[in-house]
């Protein structure tokens, strides 16, 4: 086990290096960055002197020049950037004039909370769904559920999101739900439970829009693994020794099928972070996705670069955690 973890960590190093180099190169070769002074002044009119100074600071910050103003080679630039990143000095946003780390600290909890709730809802529907369809394989309920979940998966979030918002959170039609944000304005004088209720009321529509597409994949996988487990020898043994159908199902088949869920959970993590861009933009929630989107529009390259970096490191770590969990949960799995 320890050997396995060490090997996985060692294999992560080239991936991380390659990924950071890709991000570095993508941003460094962006047209109009390395020389553009106007890029950094964010549209504010400045004197020529101030502009020059700012550009010098910016070039220094991006490791384009050394202390004496001499240009640095590309590889050295990458190494310096990597060094300062490893030391925890992420970039500074051009638009917000704040360190990217601060921005991420503010927004990561928002996105993670919503995604955690969304994932819980997806599992609460998909596990029974997969179980029922597996037990009724080929019958009407199986086909109906399969088609319905595939149709939901195909339904574009941008359409359903804007339609739901347009009908249910719009004074023109039904003003039932808040149209933006996560909290009412007067959160300061709310009791704790009132606060939670207010939060839940605000995230109803975003959660609905972020879960409905997730049922298809997960139920299909659970259905597949239950069907596979039903044909195993141990099920026949369990039946032969006189266990009831329910016991076989819950204690033997279902528990073994849940093992696959660990892998699936890990695989769906990056998708949830990526999908939140659309949800957060439609429902005006200030999370990671919206930050990525607004900085894309403003060409706020330090934010884009560091955001991608942080998210991808999180993703790699979650893949590793999933593999280790799988190993702990199923002692049969060996990594020779």
């Amino acid at each position, binding site marked *: 086990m320890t050997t396995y973890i060490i090997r996985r960590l060692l294999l992560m190093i080239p991936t991380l290096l390659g990924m950071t180099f890709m991000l570095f190169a993508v941003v460094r070769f962006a047209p109009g960055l390395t020389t553009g002074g106007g890029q950094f002044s964010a549209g504010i009119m400045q004197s020529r002197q101030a502009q020059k100074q700012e550009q010098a600071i910016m070039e220094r910050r991006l490791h384009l020049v050394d202390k004496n103003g001499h240009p640095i080679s590309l590889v050295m630039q990458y190494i310096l950037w990597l060094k300062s990143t490893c030391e925890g000095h992420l970039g500074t946003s051009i638009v917000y004039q704040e360190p990217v780390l601060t921005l991420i600290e503010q927004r990561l909890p928002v996105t993670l909370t919503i995604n955690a709730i969304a994932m819980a809802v997806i599992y609460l529907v998909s596990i029974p769904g997969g179980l029922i369809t597996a037990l009724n394989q080929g019958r009407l309920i199986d086909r109906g559920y399969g088609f319905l979940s595939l149709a939901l998966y195909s339904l574009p979030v*941008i359409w359903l999101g804007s339609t739901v918002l*347009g009908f249910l959170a719009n004074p*023109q039609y039904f003003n039932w739900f808040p149209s933006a944000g996560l909290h009412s304005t007067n959160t300061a004088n709310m009791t704790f439970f009132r606060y939670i209720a207010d939060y839940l009321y605000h995230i109803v529509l975003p959660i609905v829009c972020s879960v409905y597409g997730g049922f298809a994949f997960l139920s299909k996988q659970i259905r597949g693994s239950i069907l596979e487990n039903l044909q195993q020898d141990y099920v026949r043994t369990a039946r032969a020794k006189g266990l009831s159908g329910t016991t076989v199902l819950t204690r033997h088949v279902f528990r073994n099928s849940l093992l696959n869920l660990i892998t699936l959970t890990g695989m769906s993590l*990056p*998708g949830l972070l*990526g*999908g939140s861009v659309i949800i957060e933009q439609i429902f005006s929630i200030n999370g990671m996705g919206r930050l990525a*989107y607004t900085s894309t529009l403003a060409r706020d390259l330090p934010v*884009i670069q560091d955001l991608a970096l942080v998210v991808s490191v999180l*993703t790699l770590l979650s893949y590793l955690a999933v593999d280790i969990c799988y190993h702990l949960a199923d002692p049969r799995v060996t990594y020779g």
Partner: protein
Amino acid sequence: MADLTMPPIDQPLLYAPRPYWGWVAARLFRPLLVRMCTAYLVMLVLIALFVPLIANGQPYTCVIPATAGHAAARDYPLFRDLSSIDWILLAVAAALAAQGIVIFASRRLARPQRMMRRRISFAIIAGITIITGSLIAALHHNRLDATNYRSLARHGLITHAVFPPVPWGYAEMEPLSKGLINQLPSHRHWLGTDGDGRDELSRLLWGARIAMGVGFVSQIIALVMGIVLGALTGYFGGVFDIIGMRLVEMVESIPTFFLILTFVAIYGRHILDIMVIIGVTGWTGYARLLRAEFFRIRNLDYVLAAQGSGMPLWRVLFKHMLPNGITPVLVSAGFGMAGAVTIEATLSYLGVGVQPPTASWGSMLNSAGNPATVFRWWQALGPGMLIFITVLAFNLIAESLRDAIDPTTMGRR
């Protein structure tokens, strides 16, 4: 004692042996729903290819009446003003039709002759298409003609004008003075107009070209990258495999939509950029699948025989191994097409996709108003439904293909 010998080889078989792909196709297209989806997608591709002839503000042909000093003359405004992309797509359509005719005409020939004929005709047609395509592209031409032919026809300045079925271009605005913006469906505009006074139906049809174009081109790029990388890593293993898989992990570690946003932010929002970006961020799944298949196949006897007979590597890889490992990749490509259509629509909806006035279903959804204040749902209905049905059709076909090649469902009808 039962006769266990094989029947003599010259004895005719009771049924014709079916090649694998014919068998897969028969199973794939058995459900009515899949046939309907295929028909819908074929229709969408035809619309994408021929849309300048279906929805356009210029007449196919008209006559400019005789005036003092000028004789009456016949004019072809629509064909005169086709852009080079239009011409190239028309050439592609003609090539596809020609190849289809050859395939149909050679269907009763024996297999060697049939394949030979199809290959030769494919080479000739592809050659002609590439040459004419690049010639047309060299004589680059954008749509320039902004003449209002409908008004000319109404005032008798042109006669015998034959307009396309939807007589509006995708960027043609009703003049502001008429107040014909955000119209409900009417006789003049069958699906109403958008906030700029442009015809919704025409824009929906033109949007099909963007959606299909992005879907096909991006997935072809992704497939080529994924197949080459997956084949090499799966066949050679070892160091190749380690490096290739690190490359896959590198791209996969960044959530797709984040990666696409990063690329779009930096490398521009031209439609070709978007195709390439969706392609180069979407190949990892194909590489993984093909690698796994090649691991399984590479030690089978027929591959060893192919290697032993001294075939060049590319022939072993792509002619002998690929057809036996491609099916999971094809299933995945079906889902990939659906994903590409969604991603393009989403990018355009967020305003970082194709640039106006190009019609895309996503940007049409966006122009249906800010949902929290003024929401014109009838404008969102058309593009929303089209994205939904297109994505659903691709997903259904992919799922049906997965069932068709799944050995565990073999016996069931």
